[in-house]
């Protein structure tokens, strides 16, 4: 559909602009302000220019948590996107069974994040949790509070449990929007299941998948509450992701300048990657 050029449309957008600007720009400016100062307490702040930025870029603790973060977000996307598509393909297309599946699959999404952490904290325990107990019974030594690999895998498993439903729901609604005629045509051509998926379903899922990848990337990159409740970032710092490193720095050590400088860099990384995805979306829209 061609859009009409009309600058009066700004009046319709203005409420959103003002509302979001209020909650976004003022705090952002405050953070920028922190990032160029050394703050010892109220009224004791000194301008330090770009010193924090230089220091932060060479900080090994931050680099380590950045690497952990990329590994985590990468694993999240690699597992959740294919699994979500698979689940969406298996869900019944209509009727009461379809509705029921939809509701059951959505349950993890509706649980507050700290409760998600709490659920897994108990569920994965070796003594009173079903999951931890079952793994131990199977003869595998598993202890998420002591072993770094176990802890990492538990956080990943929790995230897969928590967020794959979002990908599945998005793909499910995408699949439902494919007209029946497409499938009939494929049947006439005696297309294989794989061909139907590859040449009919997957291309039509493209735009929902971009939304799914974008949302999952942004949210997994900022994961905070769930691992904090589950493992507290440990053992050691094996599950301390970026947000938590930042929070410890800003609130725990009151190292505001450094934390602010780093969160700006953090913001830019997310922004850059999201911009690439976003350009992909608009590009895909243009092609049609």
């Amino acid at each position, binding site marked *: 559909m061609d859009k009409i050029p009309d600058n009066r449309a700004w009046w319709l957008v203005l409420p959103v602009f003002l509302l979001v600007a209020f909650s976004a720009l003022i705090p952002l400016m405050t953070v920028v302000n922190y990032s160029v100062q050394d703050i010892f307490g109220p009224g004791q702040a000194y301008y330090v220019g770009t010193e924090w930025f230089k220091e932060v870029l060479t900080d090994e603790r931050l680099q380590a948590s950045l690497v952990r973060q990329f590994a985590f977000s990468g694993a999240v996307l690699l597992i959740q996107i294919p699994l979500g598509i698979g689940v969406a393909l*298996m869900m019944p297309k209509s009727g009461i069974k379809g509705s029921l599946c939809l*509701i059951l699959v959505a349950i993890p999404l509706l649980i507050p994040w700290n409760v998600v952490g709490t659920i897994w904290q108990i569920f994965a325990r070796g003594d009173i949790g079903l999951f931890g*107990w079952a793994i131990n019974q199977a003869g595998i030594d598993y202890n998420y509070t002591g072993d770094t690999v176990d802890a990492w895998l538990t956080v990943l498993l929790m995230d897969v449990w928590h967020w794959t439903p979002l990908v599945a729901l998005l793909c499910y609604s995408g699949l439902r929007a494919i007209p029946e005629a497409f499938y009939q045509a494929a049947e006439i051509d005696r297309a294989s299941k794989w061909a139907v998926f590859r040449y009919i379903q997957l291309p039509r899922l493209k735009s929902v998948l971009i939304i799914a990848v974008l949302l999952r990337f942004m949210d997994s990159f900022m994961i905070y509450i769930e691992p904090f409740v589950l493992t507290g970032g440990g053992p050691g710092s094996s599950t301390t992701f970026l947000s938590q490193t930042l*929070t410890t720095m800003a609130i725990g050590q009151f190292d505001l300048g450094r*934390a602010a400088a780093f969160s700006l860099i953090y913001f830019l990384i997310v922004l850059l990657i999201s911009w690439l995805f*976003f350009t992909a979306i608009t590009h895909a829209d243009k092609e049609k």
Partner: protein
Amino acid sequence: MRQTGYKNIGITVYILLLLTPVYWLLNMSFKTNREILGGLTLWPQNFTFDNYAVIFTDPSWYNGYLNSMAYVSINVVITLLVALPAAYAFSRYKFLGDKHLFFWLLSNRMAPPAVFLLPFFQLYSSIGLFDTHIAVALAHCLFNVPLAVWILEGFMKGVPREYDEMAYIDGYSFPKFFIKVFLPMIRSGIGVTAFFAFMFSWVELLLARTLTSVDAQPIGAIMTRTIGASGIDWGVLAAAGVLTIIPGLLVIWFVRNHVAKGFALGRV
């Protein structure tokens, strides 16, 4: 139909795996603390409602749910009210800076919350809104409004512009057209948007906890109280957790058909 058979088995297995952790929470909420810590039992041996009784009889507990529901509802209403006209503008008109504005809106979902908490606290304290429902509702607009505009715009693009033009020829004014003709056509979109706004506001805790202290404290923050001198009160914690799932279930029950009809209707 062997294909369908495999699919049914697959989805059943997935849903069972998905529900096991939730069952474990439910299971625990009906146990006494002694039984929880005593060892592994697959179902409650001494079935008890005591944990729920604690929550329903103590105002400091159940007020947490009321507070959460209050700010979530305010947030959903504000989100829809501002996002509907904006999404209409984005779906119908080209205007100065539209693409940049759209991306800027989306970028607000990407700000790492950790360091923005302190500025948020200062901002809302300075305008006297600290510890009110409206403060949390406004703060949650930061990530809900952009998403709402995005989803609604997709649905609105699916409605041909001929409808708008016909309504004008029939003598409808813009507000009348928008409310009487246009909104009913994107009912599904509104349902889906309301669901997502509800969901993200209901599960968020960091901002909600930072902006409240007593009068508007969300249930998530109150749950941390179960960690007392004698250790964690697991039973009550589990019961509180189970109760946080119920409002979400009600909401998705109401919008289930809309979600099924296609979140991405306009985009696919």
